[in-house]
Each structure stands twice: as C-alpha cells, then as structure tokens.
C-alpha cells in the first residue's frame, strides 16, 4: 500500500475512533515499548518468530538487547492480551499470535468454503512419515499395501509438512522423507513428542507368542525381527542417521 493511502486510512481511523491528532506522540512512545514491537512483528508476519529472530529484528542497532529482556517482553505481551481475542503461543517454530480457540465457531462461518479435508491416503502417508522417518516411499507403500501416488507426496511437500531429508544408499537412491517444523506449527505443537503415540496393538514379541498360542503352532516361533520393532515414537528430526549428509535438505 502506498504511504499516501496509509495516511488517509490513519486519518479515517482517527476520525472513526473520535481521536484527535494529539495521538501521534503517544504512538511514538508505544513504538519504544518492546512488547508492542513484538506484537507488531507477529501480527504482520505469517511465520512464528524465535527468540533469536526477534533479537535480530529488534536489536538492529546492536544496542545490547538481551534474550532475557525479550522473554520478559513476551511475558508482558501475553499478559496484556488476556483481555483480547488473541493469545501468544509457543510452537516448534517460535512464538506466534493466534485467535483463541473459543472464537473458532465464528471464524468457521467466515471461512465456510475453505478446502480443509485431507484424504485418507494423505493422512496415512503422513502418519508413516511422522513415525518412521526417515522413510522412503517404498517403505510407506509396504505398510499401506498400496502405491503412494505422486500427487499425494507432492501435496504433502507443497504444504511444507514433509521434506526430503536425503537419499537412501540403495539402488535407485530413493528419497528419504521426514517432517518439517511447519507441520508442528500447523498442529500447534512444540515437539514431535506431543503427537499421539502410535497405538501399540501388541508388541511384536507378544504378537508372535499370541499367534503361536492361538493358531496352535507347536514350539514358539523364533521371533522375526521386524523393521517396525524400532522405536515407534514420532522421531525427532535430528535422528536422521543413515541419511547422506551431502544431500541434506
């Protein structure tokens, strides 16, 4: 927007709120207050901002602003917003402002036509990437028993929920997929650990025993080591051993 237009809006706003021109000085004082500057940055941007990013943006003159000061300003911003419709929330990517969940019914009316449903193929593929990362498309297909379409992968990539972590050193060098910070942000989470646990139907040793008993197999079968036996908690992004470091994201 051109600055001239902004000035007009400003005047309109002043008029609408019945405020006089004397406001300007008070406004300058506002800009000094760190919690307001942080609020301005979070309202204007789309992405969460980390303490480090805030420090860089706010301390342009290198006047020795400290993290502790930013943290204190965040706390006071959070406190000030308690009487309003927005709230300060920390997610994986940093701090952001979001509209309190109790207003969702109103907002849902505003956005009635939004596309938001995810196909089962997409959700199941995403689940496998979350809990088995780094994982190849072939490995996903093996569990699902069905091909994963290119458009499913592309949509997950386009949403920036999933990224290529590297390539597996096997013939064909298939891409290894993992989750992004953006996925956690979009789910309002700080870490992968906050995602639901993969249901433990029966662990595989038990399963083997149960199978042997139920199916009347004599002699307990040697438990088959399965790739699934590895930890099934959502994996932290750091755990990408086996990923070719030269082909990082």
């Amino acid at each position, binding site marked *: 927007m051109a600055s001239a237009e902004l000035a007009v809006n400003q005047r309109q706003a002043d008029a609408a709120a019945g405020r006089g021109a004397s406001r300007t000085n008070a406004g300058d004082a506002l800009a000094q207050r760190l919690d307001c500057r942080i609020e301005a940055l979070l309202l204007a941007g789309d992405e969460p901002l980390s303490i480090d990013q805030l420090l860089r943006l706010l301390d342009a003159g290198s006047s020795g602003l400290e993290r502790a000061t930013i943290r204190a300003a965040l706390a006071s911003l959070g406190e000030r917003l308690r009487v309003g419709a927005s709230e300060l929330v920390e997610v994986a990517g940093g701090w952001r402002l979001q509209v309190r969940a109790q207003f969702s019914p109103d907002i849902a009316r505003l956005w009635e036509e939004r596309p938001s449903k995810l196909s089962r193929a997409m959700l199941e593929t995403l689940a496998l990437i979350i809990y088995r990362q780094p994982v190849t498309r072939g490995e996903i297909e093996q569990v699902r028993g069905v091909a994963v379409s290119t458009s499913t992968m592309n949509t997950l990539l386009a949403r920036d929920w999933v990224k290529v972590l590297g390539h597996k050193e096997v013939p064909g060098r298939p891409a290894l997929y993992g989750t992004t910070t953006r996925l956690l942000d979009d*789910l309002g989470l700080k870490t992968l650990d906050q995602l639901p646990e993969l249901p433990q139907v029966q662990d595989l040793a038990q399963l083997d025993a149960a*199978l042997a008993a139920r199916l009347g197999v004599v002699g307990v079968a040697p438990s088959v080591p399965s790739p699934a036996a590895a930890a099934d908690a959502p994996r932290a992004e750091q755990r990408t051993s086996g990923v070719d470091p030269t082909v990082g994201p």
Partner: protein
Amino acid sequence: MQSGALAGGEAEAANAAAAHGVVGAPPTAGAVGEAHVPKVAGRPLVELPADLYIPPDALEVFLEAFEGPLDLLLYLIRKQNIDILDIPVLQITQQYMRYIALMEGLRFDLAAEYLVMAAWLAEIKSRVLLPRPPVVEDDEPEDPRAELVRRLQEYERFKTVAETIDALPRQARDFWLAHASAAVPDVEAEPPPLELRALLLAFHDVLARAEMYVHHAVTREPLSVRERMAHILERITAGPAPFAALCDPREGRAGIVVALLAILELAREGLLDVRQEPPFGALILASADAAAS
C-alpha cells in the same frame, strides 16, 4: 469425523447389522471349513448382468472407499467382530475373492495390489488346508497366516493413528492465526530472478494437483449406506422397483454409488432379490420375502 466417510459409514452400519443378527451368527471354527458357493437370493453375486450400467467413475469411487487390499481385508474382518488373531482365512478369502470377482465382473480395471493380495490369500488358504507336516525344530514352524496378521496389524496401527492426527486441532481448520494488515514496505533487496520455466513448471504441478482435489471431493460425500439400505428396503417392500427408481440423479455420482453399495449389501444379506426380465431388460429389485412367496 468424516475421514473415510464411505468405508467408515459402511463398517459402522455392518457392525450395527451384526448386532441385530442380520449378518448371521459370528463365524465359528466349524464354519471356517465350509466352502459353500456364495449365493445371494438364489444366484451368485458375481453374475450381475453386464448391462447394469454403472459409470466407471462410480466404481472407482467404490474402490476408493478402501485404501487398498489391506484396508478392504480389515473391513471384512472388523465387520464381523473377529479378532485379527482369529482370522477365519477360508471365509475371509472367500469374501475377498467375491468382492474382487464382483469388481472384475463389472469390468473394472483392478489395481494390481488387489490381485497380488488375492494370490497371497489363495496361497495361505491352500497351506492351511494341507495337512500339517510333523514339526521339525526350526523348520518353518510359523502359521501361514502369521505374516498376513502382522501386516494387517501394522497397517491398522497407522490407519488408526492417521485418524487421531486428523482429529488434532489444525491451523486454518480448528484455530486461526491472528493477523493485522501492514503497509507493504518497499523491498530493498534485489528480487531473485524470475525464470519463466520455473513458473510454468509450478503451474503444471498445481494443475495436476488440482485434479486430485476434484477427485477427492467426489469421494468425500458424507452419505450413509446404512440409511440408504433402510430407505431402499422400505421402498421395495411396497413392491418391486427398477434400479433407476432407487437412485436420485440429483445426488450426483456419490449418491448413485451409495445406492449401489446399499443394494449390494442388501443382496449380500439376502434381503433383496435382483431380477432381470426380459434378458437385457431393466433390473428389477424386489424384497427377498416377496420373491420367496
């Protein structure tokens, strides 16, 4: 939750049916061995007349209710309230084959995965039927069903957690970010070069993806098969009706598919009889009671 509306709805419906004794007694060990030919109202289901016109897209939607053969198998198992560990392989194999045969009978080009699964089930079935050789230590003591059970369980874990993840609060669906407009400052930095090719590739990608969305919009119609079954049953109890009269074109493809699913399910449960008089004439659906009397 709407995820898997078609399959979920049907599974739910089937469970309800089981509770009311419609499906019949839960399978027992004795039932497993009976290789009876699947007949519905006096004729095998696979012999649906070739001129029962179903738009190819509708069939695709039917199959898309399932995320592949493992999902279809889980559905067949769950709808009978069987523990996965107790899979009556013969029975489930039969049911699976029946669905596959139905699909093929309707000239639907089945995804290869369904056929691979069919072959695997057939193999398991034959191994179960063969007399068990004397047990030798370390010599393949595993039940032939074990691998199938493992894969079904593994798939089900992810299927379940995918639903849980879908239910998590999601930005722009359940909660929203707080934004205020800000004057767009002039960007000082030199903008990155804009390449025509990159631009066109991006467009190509997005259009390819858009097609998929249109597709999903079709499968996501939340229509209940069970509800439709009740409606159709009521309608044909009053008197035989042609297939076309039981479909409302205003509901679009998804509605017709739901009607088809409802009719197939009613036929499978022996509540409905499909007639065709004369040959190549219209399909007439009548209540099984009326047909018997």
